[in-house]
């Protein structure tokens, strides 16, 4: 007999609405209970049937069929063409991810040494873990560029610290950590990696408060050559974790990215910061 709680989880699972610990716990229960598996299978078949309830739309272009059949060609076993990446990530992204990982670790390790008591230490360690989890996304993308051996070394050895510092320098990247100075988001942290050469950057944030529907976070790049900060674009965060990973490209050429800042603004962003400053780099 399946109780209501498990029926509810099964229904949510059928819609792929379970996440995190709730999903892991349910999948454990699923593995151990054939009756529950049968329920999930029947509910999944039902959800798939909802496809039939979609209102009809004009048919796709006639060329789509030919396009698909042209793509459905067996790959020859020999003399196959060289593998081409489906997209080309920025060449500095690998080093950005590596440097981000390194600086996040150094930043929080340094902080943890300065705080008093084991409790504070544990809190800092948790923050580090959260940011490191965020950088995993970068590392996954970097995997295309970095060899497996390099990644293994990165994950396990401190010997790379010097290498990373040198490589970040070679790549001419600016790394900045952002935190709250106003005290309105004391748990929030971010790392910005900026490539002056490409005029692009990556921002990884965690623990920012969930946004109201009419709000966005907006990134600013402070360059002394401009009287007001340069707009780096708006972004949202995961409502549950406050995390986000944002590739940004400011609208103006940035000569010196002196400071990065994040403010809370109305939906869509503003040309000049109006809302409270949530994070700022030192």
């Amino acid at each position, binding site marked *: 007999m399946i109780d*209501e709680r498990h*029926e*509810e989880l099964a*229904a*949510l699972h*059928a*819609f*792929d*609405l379970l*996440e995190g610990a709730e999903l892991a716990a349910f999948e454990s229960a699923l593995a151990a209970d054939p009756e529950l598996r049968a329920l999930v*299978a*029947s*509910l*999944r*078949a*039902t*959800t*798939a*049937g*909802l*496809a*039939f*309830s*979609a*209102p*009809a*739309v*004009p*048919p*796709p*272009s006639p060329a*789509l*069929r030919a*396009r*698909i*059949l042209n*793509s*459905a*060609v*067996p790959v020859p076993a020999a003399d196959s063409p060289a593998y081409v990446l489906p997209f080309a990530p920025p060449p500095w992204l690998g080093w950005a991810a590596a440097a981000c990982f390194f600086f996040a670790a150094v930043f929080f390790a340094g902080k943890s040494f300065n705080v008093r008591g084991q409790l504070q230490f544990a809190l800092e360690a948790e923050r580090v873990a959260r940011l490191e989890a965020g950088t995993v996304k970068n590392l996954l993308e970097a995997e295309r560029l970095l060899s497996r051996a390099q990644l293994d070394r990165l994950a396990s050895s401190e010997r790379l610290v010097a290498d990373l510092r040198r490589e970040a320098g070679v790549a001419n990247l600016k790394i900045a950590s952002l935190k709250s100075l106003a005290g309105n988001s004391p748990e929030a942290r971010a790392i910005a990696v900026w490539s002056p050469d490409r005029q692009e950057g990556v921002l990884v944030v965690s623990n920012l408060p969930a*946004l109201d*529907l009419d709000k*966005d976070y907006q990134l600013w790049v402070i360059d002394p050559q401009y009287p007001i900060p340069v707009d780096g674009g708006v*972004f*949202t965060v995961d*409502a*549950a974790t406050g995390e986000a990973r*944002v590739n940004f490209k400011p609208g103006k050429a940035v000569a010196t990215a002196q400071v990065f800042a994040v403010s809370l603004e109305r*939906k869509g962003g503003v040309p000049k910061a109006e809302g409270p400053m949530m994070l700022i780099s030192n």
Partner: protein
Amino acid sequence: MSDSSSIDAAPAADDSRHAFDAELLRRAGAGDQSALGELYDRWVRPLHALACNVLRDPAESEDVLHDVFVTLWQKAADFDASRGHAFSWAATLTRNRAIDRLRSRARRAELLAQAAPADLGYDETNTPADGGDTTWLKEKASAVRQALSSLPADQRDALQLAYFGGLTQQEIAGKLSQPLGTVKARIRRGLLKLRDLVAPQL
């Protein structure tokens, strides 16, 4: 659409149709391109409607369909008919790819603003256009829509947002302005009822 080696006529009965789909998928898995073409002809309408209802963008929906059919071609050999119908597999793949694409747009707030039960609701008058092998599609659509119409509106809205909206539990609750627990209960009750109503016809 099919060449001389393909099966000549689709069986009318559901079991036969499912078996025919599975056979086409098996042939596609063995490298028979004409079988993939037949699957495309049989499934493209409902899968396209599904992708369009998730993405609200015909061009992106075509990209999703391209991705889905190429994946079916590559993974057809992995299909296990004992675990479900071939069309269910294709529909699940299409929905997942469409939602992945929706989420990759990195504009969750915009998504929230777009997704509305009223927009996602069925319209009994909005049936597939004539042409091709659409009788079965009309029958299925009619059965699922009738079943949905028999559910309380709050349960129907919750199910449609959960399926087409690409939202999280919390976002669905926010969209419906209901506590999360209420929304979960509506999804549970609605889906169990829908299963009892449509399972024999899917």
